[in-house]
C-alpha cells in the first residue's frame, strides 16, 4: 500500500506552520492570503478556502484584497516553503524509508512491510496525521494500492481516505479530469468530448482512445481507473539548510536573539556534520517589526551574508561571526523573524602546499575581518562595505565604487572605457568639508586646515549629476581643479560643491 500526504494550499500552510498551535488554529479559520511580487505591486499567490470564499482570487493586488476582505496577509517565502517541504519529507520518513517528493506539498510513501510497526492502514494514516499536525500541517491523507491512486485521492478528497484493492476505479470516478493534470491540449479535447470526470474517461473504449489520443490517452485512462503501478522516485536528501524562527512578540534584546541564533546554528551544523558537509556561505536575515512600515520603510530587514573563504562546520566560528556583527549593528527596531541559512559544500580536504606563500589561518582571518568590521562598521554612510576588495562602478559619479568580500577566485573586472587620468589624484577619504569664497561663480579662496588659501588658478566647473529617479541616491556636483597658494608654494587640489547639500568639499590633491 502507498500513502500520499497532501497539504492543500501548501504556500498558506508553509507560512502558518511555525505559528504556535492556538494562533495557527485561529488563522486557519480566517482568510489568509499569501502575496508575491515587488513591494510596489504585491499580488495574491495563494489563499486558503476562507479567503477564496471571501472573493479573493489568485493574481489580485494587495489593495484589491484589502478592499474586499480583512484577510491576514503574508508575503510568500519560497525558503519557508522549501523548509516546509523538507519537514513534510521528514514526517514521511518517520513511517517509511521509501519516500517520494512528488510536488510541493505532496509526498508519497511506500507503506509495504510497515504493518507490523504501524498496524492497519487506518492506524498508519491516523499516526501520520497526528505527526503531521505536530509539524504544523493539516493534511489530506490517502492510502491506496498504488502511488497514483493515493495521489489523486489525496488531491481530490479531504481528510483521510483509504481505498482497498479493487475499488480504485469506483472511488476515483467522481473526481474531475483536471486532477490528473493532463496536458492542456488533452484537457481541451476531453472537455470538447464532454468527458469531465474520471468515471467517463475510464468508460471510453481503450482502443478507440489510443486511436485518438495515442498511448498517453490510454495512460490517462489507466490512471483514471487506478490501474497504474509505478515505482516511487526516491526523494533526494535535502540540499537546502535553512532554519527560521518567527518570534511571537518581536524581541528587542540581543541576548534573546543570540540564544535562538546559537540554537539554529548548532542544528544546522549538526545536520551538515551528519552528512559530512561543511558550509562556505552563511546568511543571516532579521525581519524587523512592522511598525517601521508605517514610516514608509517597507520590507525593513537586516540581511547579512558571509562568504567564507573556505568550507567550515564549526558552529562556534559561525556564531562568533554572526554575534560580532549583531553586537556592532544594534537594530533600530525589534526583530520579528530570524532566518539562518548555510550553503552545504564538501569540507576542505586540501593540505597546505610546501611552497605556498604563508597566509593567515583562514578561520582567524575571517574572525579578524569581523572584528575590523566591528570597529569600522559593516558599511559606511553610503552603504559601501568597509572591509573587502574595491570595485569601480559603471557610473558618472566620481569615485563611485563598491567593496566586495575577499575571494580566492579572481574575477576579471569589467572593461571600463573611462580615460585613464594623466595626473594622479590622491583622494581624501573621507572628503574634507570646507568653505569656499567665490566671485563670479568661481572659487576665489578655499579654507584648508583652518587656513584661507587664495586660488591662483581654477579649472572648471565640471558638472555631473545622476540617479535623479531615486531621491535617496540622487547626486549633483560641481567640481573645480584649483591651484592654491600655500605656505610651501602652490598646491593643486580638487574641490567640489555638493549642489544638493550646498556644501563644498576638498576631494583630493593632485600630484
Amino acid at each position, binding site marked *: 500500500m502507498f500513502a500520499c500526504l497532501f497539504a492543500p494550499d501548501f504556500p498558506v500552510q508553509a507560512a502558518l506552520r511555525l505559528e504556535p498551535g492556538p494562533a495557527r488554529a485561529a488563522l486557519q479559520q480566517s482568510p489568509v492570503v499569501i502575496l508575491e*511580487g*515587488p*513591494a*510596489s*505591486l504585491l*499580488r495574491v499567490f495563494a489563499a486558503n478556502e476562507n479567503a477564496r470564499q471571501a472573493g479573493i482570487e489568485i493574481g489580485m*493586488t*494587495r*489593495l*484589491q484584497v484589502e478592499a474586499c476582505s480583512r484577510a491576514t496577509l503574508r508575503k510568500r517565502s519560497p525558503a519557508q516553503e522549501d523548509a516546509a517541504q523538507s519537514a513534510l519529507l521528514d514526517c514521511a520518513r518517520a513511517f517509511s524509508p521509501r519516500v517520494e517528493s512528488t510536488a510541493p506539498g505532496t509526498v508519497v510513501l511506500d507503506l509495504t512491510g510497515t504493518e507490523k510497526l504501524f498496524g492497519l492502514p487506518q492506524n498508519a494514516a491516523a499516526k501520520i496525521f497526528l505527526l503531521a499536525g505536530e509539524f504544523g500541517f493539516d493534511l489530506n491523507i490517502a492510502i491506496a494500492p498504488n502511488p497514483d491512486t493515493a495521489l489523486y485521492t489525496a488531491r481530490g478528497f479531504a481528510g483521510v481516505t483509504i481505498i482497498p484493492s479493487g475499488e480504485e476505479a469506483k472511488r476515483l470516478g467522481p473526481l474531475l479530469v483536471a486532477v490528473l493534470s493532463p496536458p492542456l491540449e488533452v484537457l481541451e*479535447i476531453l472537455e*470538447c*468530448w*464532454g*468527458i469531465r470526470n474520471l468515471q467517463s474517461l475510464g*468508460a*471510453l*473504449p481503450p482502443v*478507440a482512445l489510443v*486511436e*485518438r*489520443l*495515442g498511448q498517453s490517452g490510454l495512460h490517462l485512462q489507466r490512471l483514471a481507473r487506478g490501474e497504474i503501478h509505478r515505482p516511487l522516485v526516491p526523494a533526494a536528501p535535502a540540499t537546502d539548510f535553512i532554519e527560521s524562527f518567527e518570534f511571537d512578540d518581536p524581541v528587542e534584546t540581543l541576548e534573546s536573539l543570540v540564544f535562538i541564533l546559537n540554537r539554529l546554528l548548532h542544528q544546522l551544523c549538526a545536520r551538515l556534520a551528519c552528512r559530512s558537509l561543511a558550509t562556505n556561505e552563511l546568511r543571516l536575515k532579521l525581519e524587523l517589526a512592522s511598525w517601521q512600515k508605517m514610516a*514608509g520603510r*517597507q520590507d525593513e530587514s537586516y540581511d547579512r551574508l558571509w562568504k567564507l573563504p573556505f568550507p567550515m562546520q564549526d558552529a562556534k566560528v559561525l556564531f562568533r561571526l554572526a554575534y560580532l556583527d549583531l553586537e556592532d549593528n544594534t537594530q533600530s527596531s525589534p526583530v520579528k523573524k530570524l532566518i539562518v541559512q548555510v550553503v552545504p559544500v564538501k569540507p576542505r580536504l586540501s593540505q597546505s602546499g610546501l611552497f605556498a606563500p604563508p597566509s593567515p589561518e583562514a578561520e582567524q582571518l575571517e574572525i579578524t575581518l569581523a572584528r575590523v568590521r566591528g570597529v569600522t562598521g559593516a558599511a559606511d554612510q553610503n552603504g559601501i562595505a568597509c572591509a573587502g576588495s574595491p570595485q569601480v*562602478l*559603471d*557610473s*558618472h559619479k566620481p569615485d563611485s565604487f563598491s567593496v566586495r568580500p575577499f575571494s580566492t577566485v579572481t574575477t576579471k573586472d569589467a572593461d571600463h572605457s*573611462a*580615460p585613464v587620468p*594623466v*595626473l594622479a589624484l590622491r583622494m581624501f577619504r573621507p572628503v574634507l568639508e570646507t568653505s569656499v569664497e567665490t*566671485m*563670479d561663480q*568661481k572659487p*576665489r579662496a578655499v579654507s584648508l586646515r583652518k587656513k584661507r588659501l587664495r*586660488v*591662483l*588658478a*581654477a*579649472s*572648471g*566647473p*565640471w*558638472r*555631473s*549629476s*545622476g540617479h*535623479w*529617479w*531615486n*531621491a*535617496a541616491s540622487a547626486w549633483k556636483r*560641481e567640481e573645480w*581643479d584649483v*591651484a592654491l597658494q600655500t605656505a610651501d*608654494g*602652490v598646491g*593643486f587640489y580638487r574641490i567640489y560643491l555638493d549642489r544638493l547639500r550646498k556644501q563644498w568639499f576638498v576631494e583630493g590633491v593632485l600630484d
Partner: protein
Amino acid sequence: MENSRGQAFCVRFGFLAKIGIPRYRSGFQKRLMYSELHARSAFTFLEGASLPEALALVCAQRGIPAMALLDKNGVYGTPRFHLAAKESKIKAHVGAEVCLAEGGYYPLLVKDRTGYQNLCRLITTAKLRNGKNVVAASSRDELQRHSAGLVCLTGDENGPLSLALQKHGMEAGRKLLQQLSFIFGHENVYVELQRHFHRHQEARNQAAIALARELRLPVLATNGVCYATPAEREIADAFTCIRNKRRLDTAGRLLAQNSQRHVRSPQEMARTFVDIPEAIANTMELSSRLEFTMENLGYEFPRYPVPAGETMDSFLYQRTWEGARCRYAPITGRVRSQLERELALIENLGLAGYFLIVWDIICFCRENGILVQGRGSAANSAVCYSLGITAVDPIGMELLFERFLSEERGEWPDIDLDLPSGDQREQVIQYVYQRYGQRGAAMTANVCTYRGRSAAREMGKVLGFDEETLSRLSKLTGSWEWRDPMDTLQKQFTKAGLDLHHPQIGVYMDLCRRVRDLPRHLSQHSGGMVICQGQLDSVVPLEPATMPGRVVVQWDKDDCAALGLIKVDLLGLGMMAVIKDSIDLISEHYGETVDLAHLPQDDAARDVYETIQKADTVGMFQIESRAQMASLPRNNPRRFYDLVTQVALIRPGPIVGQMTNPYLKRRQGKEKVTYPHPSLEPVLKRTLGVPLFQEQLLRMAMICSNFTGGEAEELRRALGSRRSQQRMIHIEAKLRAGMTQNGFASGTQDDVVKFITSFALYGFPESHAASFALLAYASAYLKVRYLGAFTAALLNNWPMGFYAPATIVKDAQRHGLRVKPVDVTRSDWNCSLELENDGKFSLRMGLRNVKRLPQLAAGALVEARNARPFSSISDLALRVPRVSPGNLRVLAQIGALNNIGKENGLHRRDALWESQKAAQPVGPLLAGVAGPDSASPLLRMTTDERLMADYSGTGLTTGQHPLFYRREELRRMGAKSARELALLCDGDHVRVAGCVIARQRPGTAHGFIFMSLEDETGIANAIITPDLYAESTMTILQERFVWMEGTLQNKDRVVHVKAELIAPLHMAPMAMTSRDFH
C-alpha cells in the same frame, strides 16, 4: 617657478579663466548675440526630449535670434519648427545630422535651396538603400556629390572630428578637416566647440581649437541641444534606456553626465566661451549666411500629359463638359455659369493638372471596376462632380464652392477619395507609384506619439517593472473617447494596485505624464499620397515603409499641408467594399443591376426611409451608432437632405454647441424656427435656423463680421486640428468687432460666437456630410431591399462599423433572413447566398468566421471539395493536410462537419470523435489510408454546450440567442425583453437583462456611458451615470451578460433605460465579444 607650474596646469586642464581676468572683453559685453546652430528635437527619435515647438519657444524666451534644427538623418521636425519659429519670431535654420558609413554623424546646415535639395536627396538615397529599421548611412562619395549649398560642422562627441581624434589623434583630425574643406569648400567648414562642463570634452575642444588655428578654419560654439530645459534631461535619460534596452539602474554611463544640453541663453554661452569669443561671434556670422527657409521649397505638382495641340486647361475644359453632359442633362444656365466660373478660377490658379491627375485616378478605378467616391470639400465643386470625382451635385444642393477653392486663399484644394478597403485600394496606390515613379510619389507619414498606454509600458520598463505589472497597467490605461477629469493617472495607477506613496511610483507617474505626446517613431498615414513634378526627394526626404513597395515622406499630413505640398487622400472605407460586394452579389444571385448613381430617391424609397426613421439601422453607414439611433426617430428623415443633416448632427461640434437639440425640436415642430439675426436667414434657412455645417459658420462670419473669404478660411484653419487658444481669442475679438460694427446686440453676438467656437470641437462641412449621406443611404437601401446580400457583404468585410458579427447576424435574423451555420460541404471562405425552396435567399456563414482557420487552409478545403465531395472526416483530413488537427476540432465543435459522409448527418460529438481520429498521425504503413469509423461513445452536446461551442468557435450562433433559453426564468424575475420596453411608459421602473454588445463613452457625454444590451427580441439601450460607473466599474467593463434595473425613458419613440443598478448575469461561459470604446 610657481607661475610656470600654474600655466602648465592650466593648459593640462583646459583652464577657463584666471582669477582677476575681466569677465568679457571690452565691447563684447555690450552686444551679446548668439545663435544656436546645433539642436535636436524629439524627432531624433528616442534621443531628443523636446518638441520643436518647445525649442522655438524657449529660444525666443531666452533671446536667441536663430536656431538650427539638426535631427538625425531627417528633417522630420522642420515644418513644425518652421511654423513655431515664425510665431515666436526667430529664424529657423534647416539641416540634419547625417550618418556616414565610416562612422560619425555629420551636422550639415542648409545655405540655400540647392543645399536643401542636396540634403533631402542625400538622406533619401541612404534611407532607401538601407531599408526600414536600419540606421541609414551615406558613403563619402554621396556626401561629396551632394555637398553644394551645405555647411558642415565638425560635430559633438559623435561627430567626425571627435571620432578621428579619439581613434588616431591629431594627425587624423587634421586629415579629416582637410578632407571636409575639400568636399564643402574651406569657407563652409566650421570647427564646432561644445562645453557641457565635462573634463574630457574640454581636452577635445583644445585639440579642435589648435587644429582650427592651424588650418585657419573658423570655430563655432554650439550647445548640441537635446532638450529645451534642464528638467527634460530625465526624459532624455529614459529614452537612452529605451534605445539601449536597459533600465535606469543598469544603464551606467550610457546616461547623460549632467543636464547641460538645454537651450542656453546668449549670456550663458558667452560666459562659457569667454576665452574664445570668436566662437560666439561666428554663430551670428554663419546664421546670416544661411538664407534658406522653408517658405519656398520649390515644390510643383506634376503636369498632366495632354495630347499634342492641347493645354492642360483646354483638356480639362473638354473633359468637364463631356462629364457635365452626362451628369446634368440638360445643362441649365445655372450649371453652365457655375462650371464656367469654376473652370476660369482653376485656370487662373493653374490647377488644371491637379484636377486631371485626380480624374486620371478615377478613370483607372472605373476601368478596373473599383468603386470610388470623392469626399470632403471637393463635393462643393461642380467640376469635380462632372469629372466623376464626387457623387453629390453641388448645384442641386447649393453647396459653397469657395469652401473648396478660392482665389485669395492661395492654398491647394483638398480632394479625398474613398476606396474599398483592402486589395483594391492597394491597387490604386501602386498605380500612382507606377505612374509617378518611386521618387515622384510617396505616402504621407504618421507620427506615432507616446500615449497613455505606450507611455505607461515603456516608462515602466525603464524603471524595471515586471511584465505582469506593465500588462496590467496597459490594460487599465483606458482608451475611452471620454476622459473623465477625475480619471487621472493617479486613479489609474491606484486601480492597477500600485502604491502611490512608493517613491519609485511617483517618478514613474511623472515620467509617464511628461513623455506623453512626444514622438516615438514614424509610420505611414493610412491614405495620404504626395505627388510631385520631377523629384519629390528634392522637396522632402523619403523613407521606405514597412510594407514592401511603399515609400513615405518624413512629414505628416498637417506638415505637408502647412508647407503647401499637395496630397491626394486615397482612403480605405469598409462601407465602399461592402457596397461593391453587395452589388456583385445582387447581380450574381438576384440577377439585378444596382446603379449607385440612380438609386430610387425620396418617395420611391419610402420603405428605406421608414426603416431609418425607426432607427432600425444596425450595419448602416454612419447612422448605426447609439447616438445616431437615438436621434433618428426625432429627426424623422424623409428625403436625402434629411440624411445629410442627420450625418452632420451627431458630431462633437453641434453637440457641444447645443445645436442638436434645438434642431431636433424644430424638426418635430416643438420649437419655433428663429434666427440669431434676420441677416442670417438665407444661410440658416435649410437647417431651421441652427448652424450644422462648417460652411454655414464661415458664411455667418462673413455676414455678421464682414470677414473676407480669406479671413473666413483663417477661421476654418483655426477650427482645425491644430487649433490654438491664442488664435481663437484673436478671432473672437475680430468677430465681435465686426458684429458691433454691424449693430448686432450683445446677446446675439454671444450666440454667434458660441456657434462658431463650438465648432472647434469638429463639425462636418456640408459637402462631406452629403458624400457620407450618400453612402448611408446606399447602405440603408441595400439592407432594406437586399438583406441577404448586404449582410453577407458586411460580414465578409468585417471588422468595420459599430457591431460585432454576432449582432449583425441576430439583427438580420430578426428581419427574416435565414442564416445557416458553417458547413464544410457548402461554405466558402466568404459568407454566401443560397436559394431556398421558397424562392428566398438564405445566408450561409463562411469559413472566414471559423476562429484560427487560416485562409489558405480554407481555400485548400474548398478546392478539394469542389474537385470531389468528402466521403468522411478522415477523407477530408487526408486530402486537405493544410487543415490542422486544431482546425478540424473547431470545425467539428461548431457542427461544420455534421454533414460529411453520413446520410442522416452526425451530431457534433460524433464529428469530434471522428475528427480526433483523423487528426491523429499514423505510421507510414497506414499513411494515406482512411480507416473505418467506429461508433462514437460520446453523448450529444446539450444546448448550453452547443452555444458555448458556437461562440468559442465562431464568435456567434446562428441558433437561438442565449437569452432565449433563459426567458422564462427572467420573466419570473420581472425582466422585460428589449421589444417589450417600447410598449412601456416613460418613467416606469424596469428590469432588463442582456448580452452587452457595445459600450461607449463619448467625449461629449460628460462621463456618461451608453451600453447596448441584446436579447432574442432586439437591442435595449441603457444609460449609465458616472456615479454608477464608479460603483460598478468591473461589472460594466468586464461582464458579458448583465442584469439591470432602472427608470425607463420613452420619449419620441426613443427608448432608454437609465440604470440604477447593474449586476452580472450568470450564464454559461460563452466567448462573446462587445465593441467598446468608440
